[in-house]
């Protein structure tokens, strides 16, 4: 394989109007607005619907648990289900996902357990799952940094002729970071099999998108890297899934990276410690609640007769079961071993760390000795 790529794509400006397959009333669209993408088959849409409903149940449950103090923090994706679920559903279990802190619900679709996903938000350890097992990287906190990891892993796989795709999630705010630029550029120059999803939820904490970019769409950025860019209605899971599937297929067949912008809205606060009343009007939130991604698909599925009462019940039950599993997982506080703090920093053992570990061990022993004495003295 030669990595010397000099061929250029024809340059196309992303459409200013977001690509959309279902309108807000759940009607299937035709013509220019679809950007030439086809509505996925109804069984696929039903599956996406199920995942979204279950994901939202999870998200609501975790927000509630966080308010009860069971988690240190939780960044909700309420309202962003179409982006979160639509895109991650376009990759296979062999592909890799590089998520941010916002993307807990995408991880559900990857098969991760609530207890794994939430370990860092509960404060137990910085990351709670086996990344290779799930082909899902740890959630990145330093913004946009994970996009480069996704590009590097994709390039390594390509060098090994391993036909996998990497999918990196980013927020609108994160596109302003230098690392986003470098990731887009490396991916394009190396033609790595990488799909970038920018969830434009229109705010970076309190900072609105108008202070983040002067471009018409975030997908416009793709032009400057010579890669295809799509500006998509991020509350239309059909469109998100269709565009992402095309991008994943192109990536897998050697066609290089794609930038997908999903235009959406975060209904909840940034995290539980945020106060969104300081920076956005309640009526804006109401406006976006009326464009709910789940309701939209639901209307379509109902109109297609695909959403029977049985199906509804089954989905609701799955959601409740997951919520229960989530509550259960968050109600047991695992025994954490402070001495483990020293065990994973280096593969190669270090004397100084062993000394510090021993010091903490002695301190812990002294404390429990002391505690025992206190109990005995009472």
């Amino acid at each position, binding site marked *: 394989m030669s990595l010397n790529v000099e061929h250029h794509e024809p340059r196309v400006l992303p459409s200013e109007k977001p690509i959309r397959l279902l309108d807000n009333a759940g009607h299937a669209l035709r013509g220019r607005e679809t950007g030439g993408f086809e509505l996925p088959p109804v069984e696929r849409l039903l599956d996406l619907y199920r995942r979204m409903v279950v994901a939202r149940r999870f998200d609501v449950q975790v927000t509630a648990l966080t308010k009860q103090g069971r988690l240190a923090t939780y960044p909700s994706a309420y309202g962003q289900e179409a982006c979160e679920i639509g895109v991650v559903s376009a990759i296979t279990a062999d592909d890799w996902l590089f998520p941010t802190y916002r993307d807990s619900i995408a991880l559900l679709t990857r098969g991760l357990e609530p207890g794994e996903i939430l370990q860092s938000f509960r404060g137990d350890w910085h990351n709670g799952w086996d990344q290779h097992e799930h082909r899902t990287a740890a959630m990145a906190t330093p913004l946009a940094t994970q996009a480069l990891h996704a590009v590097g892993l994709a390039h390594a796989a390509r060098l090994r002729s391993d036909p996998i795709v990497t999918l990196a999630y980013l927020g609108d705010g994160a596109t302003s970071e*230098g*690392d986003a630029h470098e990731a887009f550029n490396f991916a394009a120059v190396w033609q790595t099999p990488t799909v970038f999803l920018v969830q434009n939820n229109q705010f*970076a904490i309190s*900072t609105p998108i108008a202070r983040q970019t002067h471009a018409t769409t975030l997908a416009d950025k793709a032009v400057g890297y010579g890669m295809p860019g799509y500006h998509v209605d991020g509350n239309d899971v059909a469109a998100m899934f269709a565009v992402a599937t095309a991008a994943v297929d192109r990536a897998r067949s050697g066609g290089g990276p794609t930038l997908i912008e999903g235009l959406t809205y975060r209904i909840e606060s940034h995290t539980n410690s945020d106060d969104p009343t*300081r920076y956005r009007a309640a009526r804006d939130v109401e406006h976006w609640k009326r464009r709910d991604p789940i309701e939209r698909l639901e209307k379509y599925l109902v109109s297609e007769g695909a959403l029977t009462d049985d199906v509804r019940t089954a989905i609701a039950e799955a959601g409740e079961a997951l919520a229960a599993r989530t509550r259960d997982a968050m109600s047991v506080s695992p025994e954490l071993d*402070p001495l483990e*703090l020293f065990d994973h920093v280096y593969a190669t053992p270090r004397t100084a760390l062993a000394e510090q570990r021993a010091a903490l061990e002695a301190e812990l022993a002294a404390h429990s000795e002391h505690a025992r004495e206190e109990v005995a003295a009472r």
Partner: protein
Amino acid sequence: MSTPVTEPATDAAASAPQPLTMAGALNAALRDAMAEDDRVVVYGEDVGPLGGVFRVTDGLQAAFGEDRVWDSPLAESGIVGTAVGMAMYGLRPVVEMQFDAFSYPAFEQIVSHVAKMRNRTKGRVSLPMVIRIPCAGAIGGVEHHSDSSEAYWAATPGLTVVMPSNPADAYSMLREAIDSDDPVVFMEPKSRYWSKAELALPVRTAPMNRAEVVREGTDVTLIGYGPTVRTALDAAAAAESEGLSIEVVDLRSLSPFDDETVGASLRKTSRAAVIHEAAQFGGYGAEVAARLTERNFFHLAAPILRITGYDIPYPSPKLEEHYLPTPDRVLEALASWEWDLA
């Protein structure tokens, strides 16, 4: 706590004493500096309508308008790099990095330009700018929200690095940092943001390049800065009952280091320990121990101890209590040392 000194006549008349948090004192300092000098501008991530994630810039945009206080795009190198240009023009930008770890994207701008511009231009271009960094841990933050970055800045010639430990200093030192013609990395210990004091503004404490003896003692000098001044004071209070007289020095300025004040305390007690949250290896405490030893070797009755975080990444919220230097750990360390001496 630093002793407030009388206000110079030029400043606005002092207000009646009021209880203020450190965050509130910092906010007041920004507000007063902006009112006095229209070259002062404040920007960064979420410093506008939100008032910053720690509310240090609360209300400033409403008071001074969007041309004085604004939300920038989300890019730390961009924030610091544009501040360099603004300072070259003659403004006095005060920018915020949201957490230590999120100042790292700005590392090149800070080390290669902010720190070096004045020297490069033979003093013809000074950069009067302040980089505010909410710093350190003990707030139950998830990964990357509790780093201690002071060793990086202190090791960089050309930077002035300060860290207040209490509301009065927070106000006074931030005012002084903004007034300084040198660029200042202004570190704000997050875990102390909500600590309170009665303050009559505008309060002025000792010059920001001076350390302060915040508790007198005769047996040991405990050296802290930012969050660990409280740790040192608590340890000193506990030790008192055991007959150990501990002097506590609040460094306040990490670069420059106040050799005079700290050295004098050490020569009095002949024993010292430095406390910080950051990992020990290569941490700021190494400089403290090394230079105090160099300059006061024959006054020392024992090696200078470093009571610090472990040489590991900062832990997750549920484990941070085991990482942080506590008053207990300080006392145990001192005990082991006395015992060594026996």
